[in-house]
């Protein structure tokens, strides 16, 4: 119960294959953490608490991708326990960096890393949560922007649409007053096809965007591929650029495959 005597909404935080960075964003919101914890009941958050309350939960935050049979079953249980399911980060929304296995021989990958491959069970594909269960909102980014997470929780509790951009990094970059790094310096930059949210930090640090927020709403990847060729990038380099932290997002997947067509 909160001070108004109302029952506080219950939040659960669930992890699948990931680096923990996106759920850490909640703890990294140092100024908002205690007020948020006052407004909601953080009922299940193993990274932060050994008290693990049973569901159902009003909001489920899911980090990570599905890479094992066990996790494919677990996400079904998580979905059944959550009234609203929100996926956070590139792993949960696009399969993450571990989806680089999807176009490769995963058994060979396991043999490379582990001495006794028969001890390891893993699926051939690393897939986003939405390929397994209905998802109510996807928050992109590798990692997510913590202020977006706070906005998303606040909006969800207030019953309004969250104010999260769907346009490209270019708009944020212009707003920041950067001189275009692609035009000005001839640097290959994924900004035109990548969803905003990071604050255009890579161009602000003198490097091209590497697409960690995934494809924007309607990306013109074919045009950008041409531009990369004009800048002297080889098809292999362009394919690698799209095969990053959101390689399995279909727009980036298609763009990388088109570069490698004979």
């Amino acid at each position: 119960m909160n001070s108004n005597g109302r029952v506080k909404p219950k939040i659960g935080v669930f992890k699948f294959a990931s680096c923990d960075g996106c759920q850490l964003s909640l703890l990294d919101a140092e100024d908002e953490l205690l007020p948020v914890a006052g407004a909601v009941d953080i009922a299940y958050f193993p990274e932060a608490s050994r008290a693990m309350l049973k569901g159902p939960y009003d909001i489920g935050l899911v980090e990570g991708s599905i890479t094992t049979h066990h996790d494919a079953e677990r996400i079904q249980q998580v979905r059944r326990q959550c009234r609203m399911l929100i996926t956070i980060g590139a792993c949960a929304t696009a399969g993450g960096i571990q989806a680089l296995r999807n176009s490769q021989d995963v058994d060979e990958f396991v043999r490379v890393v582990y001495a006794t491959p028969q001890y390891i069970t893993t699926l051939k594909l690393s897939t986003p949560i939405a390929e397994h269960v209905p998802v109510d909102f996807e928050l992109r980014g590798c990692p997510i922007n913590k202020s977006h997470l706070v906005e998303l929780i606040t909006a969800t509790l207030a019953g309004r649409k969250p104010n999260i951009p769907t346009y490209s990094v270019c708009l944020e970059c212009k707003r920041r007053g950067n001189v275009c790094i692609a035009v000005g310096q001839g640097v290959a930059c994924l900004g035109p096809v990548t969803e905003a949210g990071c604050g255009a930090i890579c161009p602000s640090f003198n490097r091209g965007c590497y697409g960690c927020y995934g494809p924007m709403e309607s990306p013109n990847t074919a045009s950008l591929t041409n531009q990369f060729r004009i800048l002297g990038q080889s098809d292999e380099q362009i394919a690698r650029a799209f095969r990053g932290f959101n390689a399995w997002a279909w727009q980036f997947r298609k763009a990388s495959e088109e570069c490698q067509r004979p």
Partner: protein
Amino acid sequence: MSDTVHKSRTIQVDCLARVEGEGALFVKLKGDRVTDVKLKIFEPPRLFEAFLRGRHFSEAPDIAARICGICPIAYQMSAVHAIERALGVRVDPAVRLLRRLFYCGEWIESHALHVFMLHAPDFLGYPDAIQMARDRRDLVETGLRLKKIGNRIVTLMGGREIHPVSVAVGGFYRVPCEAELRTLAEDLKWALDASLATARVVAGFDFPDFEQDYEFVALSHPEEYPFNEGRLVSNRGLDINVTEYEDHFVEQHVKHSNALHSLIRVRGSYMVGPLARFNLNFAQLPEVAQQAARECGLAVPCRNPFRSIVVRAVETVFACWEALRIINTYERPARPRADVPVHAGIGSAATEAPRGTLYHRYSIDEQGLIRFAKIVPPTSQNQKRIEEDLWHFAGQLASRPTDEVTWKCEQAVRNYDPCISCATHFLRLQVERE
């Protein structure tokens, strides 16, 4: 009570909390005898070493960072140093200093997270820092502010707290100017005082009477407390160049874990992390940190792993002091990064992540593509030692009720600040009484 003395029990925690990543612990007790301990890492395999192959060396720092959201800088640092050695790149002394400052930010952020949010609640009897904040709001607020200051350094230098974007082979994509760094000074002065006060607070906690005869392993440098450079040394005579790492250390794959156990070839388990660094490098700590350690009753060697919380606080004192020293002497390098020649080569490096030594080795071909990658995270190296601690510690607790044994065993695991996401290439706790 007599129940628990004679019966066999299995103590079990299915999802170990307040550690990074997923693991379980299984402890089997027969009376006061421990008959089995397994630290199970069920964090799914993510196969980084496999998909680094075929990527360009310039992509390695950003890809390797994604192994861990808590200590991405450690992964970036080990990656760039290994690649720079493979390609014969020498970095500007000012870049070297900036990399130490960057690491200070990660140590402050990571140690504050562990000391206040993950470990202190065990000593004060709370399930988490948020519950703890109801009675000890001052303590939690201090922790959050310290953490935020660590993150401020990282954000200033790298654009964001998690997976910062500025680290490049040869240096940085962008280096800050002197005035930008000076904006950190006031916060860091507060942080130095706050970490000194924190060391005194945590030194007053109740520590279980538990000591082990560890082999401590850490980097050691003659003039500095180690971050990115030094020889790899131990208290049992190990003293090697990092290039010899794989001659002395071996990784073992055990059935109950998706993480590999790392062992010293001739002697077995060992410990990396704050306790090891402190015991092997006390002389290189600045006077303010040495004095804080003495006031906290820390003597070298400290063999009680529960006191690692005090050592983390002392290392936070060091990191704040070092960060202030760097921003006071910093002069912006002429160029943010050195030219990097592209040719074939093999290079290895170890750096000190907040939770211990992190080893990388890369083989690069003539086009600059990675042909081979090997990564040994700190938690892989500590995993066997954590299990051994539990063999000894759980036996001491055998007369206690199951709930208490369970909580204390969890706490013993958290002494190591294990990062399971990293080690998968880890924790549910299960204590079984037979």
